Structure formats: C-alpha cells, structure tokens
C-alpha cells in the first residue's frame, strides 16, 4: 500500500514537472502576446523610432536583424556544410584530426555567447579590422577597425556554426549507405558521389541547419553587443562597415537603459513579440523539416 502511494507520488511529480514547464512556456507566450499584440501595426513594423525612441516603430531593428542573419548565413552555412561533409564522408572515425574537429565543434557549441562577443571584438574588430586599416591607410584612421555589421555577423556565424554542422551531419548520415555504394560501384569518385548523390538527398537537412542557425542568430544579443550593434541609428546600414540596430538589442536597451521605461512598455512588448514571432517561425519550420526528414529516413 505504502509503495503504491510512493509510486503515485513519483508519477504525479513527473507529470507535474512536465506541466510546469509547458505552462511556463504558455505563460511567457501569453504575456508577451497580450502585452505586444495591441501595439503591432503596419506603422510600427515599417516606421523608425521617433521622439527619442519613445514612439515610432522598429523598422531599422528588423532590417538590421535580417541583414545580420543573412550575412551570418553566407559565412556559417557553407563552412558548416563543408565541415559536416568532412565529418560524415571523409573522416576516419579514429584519426586524431577527426577527433580534434569533433571536439572543437562540441566545444564551440558550449562557449558562452558573451565570450564570442569578446573574441569578435579582439579578433575581428581590432586584429583583422585594425589590420586592414593599417594596411590601407597606414595610419590610425579607423574605418574597419571599429564595430560594424560585418564583424557582428561573422562573430554570430561562429556561434551558429555548430548548429549548422550538427544538423547537416545528421541529414548526411540519413542518406542510405546503399546509394553511396551504388555510386561508388559505378566508378564514381568520392567527390562525385558526394556532389551527385549524397548532397541532393540531404538538402532538406542543409536547409534545416541554415534555418536553425538563422533562428539562433536572430535571437542572440551578447555576441553583437560590442561588435557592431548600435543603440540608435538615424539611417539603415548601407555598407558592411556600418553599424546596425537589432531587435534583441533594441528590446534590451528599451527595457533597461531607457529614461522612462514605463512610457515605452508597449514598444518593448511589441518588440519582444516580433522577435519571438521571427525566431519561432524559423524554429518551427526547421522542426517541421527535421521531423519530415526523420520520418523519411525510417
């Protein structure tokens, strides 16, 4: 009898814990939608901040976020895909080189976002950017050696690299061995097999990886804090050496740095809602693609 009660309590607590998580997610979603829904309008989405950021819209932050993830993808997706190809197709499981790469990918996935920010500042902004400036002007004339959207995007690309690698590698491994052997047995080389047989069958995985990375990159703020994001800009970025506004950072400054936090609470909620909607849309489509891929693999 006593055992039965313990068992009941145990099962109940596992269910309660699950319910707690799900309701926390629900509560958070509800709160942000409730607070932000009323503020969302066409003007809000397409207008620039006005009156010292206490009014107006978030258009520059949306554009900045989109540009950031686009440039980031251009760097992260090819590098991630190629690394995944190496790990899945070329790597000898036991070679030291492979272990090193795998360890690096796992480590990279665990490096705190803020450390990427520091690295971006130390490496991209100061070392690379400063180096370019010195090379071009030979003088301390700062052009590339300061935070901008390129360095922010590249920093973000490093953060999202493991996301791409893991996702693409999974999809490459889901390509049946039969097909590879079929191609090799016809006298195709390894690279021909990869290009003509493996990759065409893994494109959903590559797409999933790219979307997941974009979703992650759109939501992160820490890596760009000192590599390119700006509090407020009167104009949209027009070159890679411009600074930019970003949704997450906008939400952060509006809710913590603003002089009158109460006055802009509507903007804050609405910004959070837009950011959430954006990342959800991305994540949801990635999850959908991935589940379809898994279903196909089985």
């Amino acid at each position: 009898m006593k055992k039965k009660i313990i068992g009941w309590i145990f099962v109940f607590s596992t269910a309660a814990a699950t319910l707690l998580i799900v309701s926390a997610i629900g509560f958070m979603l509800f709160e942000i939608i409730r607070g932000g829904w009323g503020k969302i309008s066409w003007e809000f989405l397409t207008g620039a901040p006005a009156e010292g950021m206490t009014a107006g819209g978030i258009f520059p932050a949306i554009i900045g976020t989109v540009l950031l993830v686009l440039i980031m993808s251009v760097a992260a997706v090819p590098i991630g895909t190629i690394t995944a190809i190496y790990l899945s197709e070329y790597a000898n499981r036991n070679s030291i080189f492979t272990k090193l790469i795998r360890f690096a990918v796992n480590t990279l996935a665990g490096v705190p976002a803020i450390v990427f920010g520091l690295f971006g500042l130390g490496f991209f902004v100061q070392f690379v950017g400063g180096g370019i400036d010195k090379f071009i002007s030979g003088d301390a004339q700062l052009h590339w050696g300061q935070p901008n959207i390129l360095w922010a995007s590249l920093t973000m690309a490093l953060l999202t690299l493991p996301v791409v690698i893991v996702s693409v590698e999974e999809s490459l491994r889901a390509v049946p061995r039969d097909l590879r052997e079929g191609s090799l047995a016809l006298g195709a080389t390894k690279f021909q097999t990869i290009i003509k047989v493996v990759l065409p069958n893994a494109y959903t995985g590559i797409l999933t990886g790219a979307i997941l990375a974009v979703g992650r990159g759109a939501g992160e703020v820490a890596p760009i804090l000192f590599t390119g994001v700006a509090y407020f800009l009167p104009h949209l970025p027009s070159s890679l050496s411009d600074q930019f506004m970003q949704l997450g950072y906008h939400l952060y400054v509006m809710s913590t740095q603003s002089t009158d936090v109460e006055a802009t609470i509507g903007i804050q909620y609405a910004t959070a809602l837009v950011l959430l909607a954006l990342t959800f849309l991305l994540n949801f489509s990635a999850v959908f693609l991935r589940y379809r891929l898994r279903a196909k693999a089985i």
Partner: protein
Amino acid sequence: MILNRTQTNGISTDRNTRSSAHHYTASKIAGGNINLKKRFRIGEFIAENIIKGVSFISFAVIVLIFIFVFREAAPIFSPAKQTSTTNTELVQETYGEESSTANETVTEQKNKSVESSGSEGEATAQNLLGKEWQPVSENPKYGLLPLIVGSFKVTFIAVLIGAPIAILAALYTSFFAPRKLREFLKPAIEFLSGFPSVVIGFFALVTLASLFQNLFGYQYRLNAFVGGIALSLAAIPIIYSVTEDALSAVPKFMTEASLALGATKWQTALFVVLPAATPGVFAALLLGVGRAFGETMIVLMATGNATLMSMNFFEPIRTMSATIGAEMAEVVFGDTHYNVLFFIGSILFIFTFILNAVAEFYVRNKLQKKFQGTA
C-alpha cells in the same frame, strides 16, 4: 591454370562486336581495356583538401578564441610592462613632473590618470581577489569575488530549480506519457530553447519580478532569485533534452527484464533506468550548469546587477557575464578595465570549456563501458 595476358585482347575484340554505340563509348571511356593504373585526379585532390581545410576552421576558431581572449587579458599579469609603457607615455605627455607623487591624492583631478594607471598596474593581480568591484572610480578596484559569487549563486539557483524539473519531465516523457502526448512534449519543451534569451530576460524583468515580489514580499524587485528562475528557463531545455536522450538510450531489455520480474513501471523507471542513465543525466547537469553560467542577457536584465556579496538569495547580484556585457561598451580599449573584462571572459571560457570536456569524455567513456557487450 596459366594466366594469359592476351586474354584481355580477346575480350576487347569480343566487346567490340557488341554494338556500335558501345563500341563508340567503349573507346571513349577507356578503349575496351581499362587502364587500372592509379591516376592523379586533381579535382578530387583539391576538393578533399579544401573540405579538410574548411573543417579545420572549427578547431582554429577554438584556438583563436583562446589566443585572442587571453591576449587581451594578459597585460594584467605583467604589471611591469604595463606600467612602463602606459605610464611613461602618459607621464611624458601630460603630467611629467607629478609622476613621483602618484600615491598622493591631493590634486585629485590632475593626478587621476597617472594614479590609476600607476596603482592599477601593480595592484590588479592582487586586487582581482578583492571584494570590491569599482572599475570606474578615482581609485578603481577590480575585485572579482562578488562577480564570481554572483555567477555561482545565480547558477546554483537556476540548476537547483531547473534540474529536478527537467529530469522529472524527462522521466515523464520517456515513461509515463501516452504515446501521442510524448510526440508533442519533446519538441514542445525543446521549443523553449528557441526563446531568445533577451526575451526570457524581458519576461523576468517585467512580469516575473513583480509577480514574485508580490508573492514573497522581499525587498528588491530584481535579485538573484528572479534571475535564477529566469535562467532555469534557459537551462531546462538542455538538461531535459540530454536526459531524455540518455533515458531512451537505455537498452530495452533492461526495462523489460525489470518489468518481467514484477516491478512496476515507476519502480523500473526509478531503480533501473534512471541509475543506468546516470552518466547521461550527469552530463545533462554539467551542460545545464555551463549554459546558465555563461548566459548573459537574462542575468543582465533580471538580477539587479549590484555587486553585493551575500548569502541571501533575494538580494541583487552581478554576474561575470553581465559585467562584461554591461561595461565592455564603455571602456577604453587597452585600458586595465578592458583587460580585466577580458580576463573575466577567459575565466568564463575556461570554466565552460572544462564543463563541456568533462561532460563529453565522462559520458562517452562511462556509457560505452556500461552498455558494452549489450550492443
């Protein structure tokens, strides 16, 4: 049976009579008798090496992070060099005559820069263990203790709250949930990891903080507790996900054996499967700790950011990551404050690096040993 070299010719004539099209292709491909001699395929060679080279980037980045984060942190450990360079420069340019009176604070205004660079240079290394963090004052103090304590405190709260919930939920998902529900639960909870941390921070700042203050009636609206709860929302999905994977990796025969012996489902879950999956659960915890410890935006927004050192969970704290996030944008490049912030970054990096490495190696070895011979 003697191998007859000429037989290949026999075959190729044979082949040539097959058809005109194949006759054509045969000669086009390899002339009937394919030459098996190894060829150097330049395209293949280049492709393989490019792929290998690109995949090396991941490793190179890790090394570069090490180098560049540490490089910017390094000057604080070489006070002599630093004082000699920055000091003399400053001294010569501005306050040449007053450099000898560095420790006197009579003419505060004028002495400021000399004094700070002078006393900083020698004092940082010891100062780092101090209890005060006042980087932008007349006499800057770089005591990291409150920040370290803050980081550990909020991480502790986050994991203390998040881990049991996440592990229990993982048990529910893999054992007790009806099939249909399970297919919904895992992606749903993993969806939480898709919440941008700045949104979680915002939620904690505007909603949780007031809610808990009303509920518990403590003094400070933003504090370690609120930050910890918010942070647990970031740690839960990773702990949950890795634990769930570990639970479902336990071989079926173990569960079945237990059930066949008359154990109930919950007894099997608690006494057979959970222990068998311990290494995985442990790894999940380590990864959760790493995630919470390194998180920036949530703690920056929800913990109050005061550098207090106390055991009270309801007082504001300031973490290492939040300090970097809040102060880096305002420092002068190359300044001691700047170096110290990088030093904090190095600590964060090393700590999470070790956690990840332990999680990976521990789990891989343990799990392999445990289930060896069963696979």
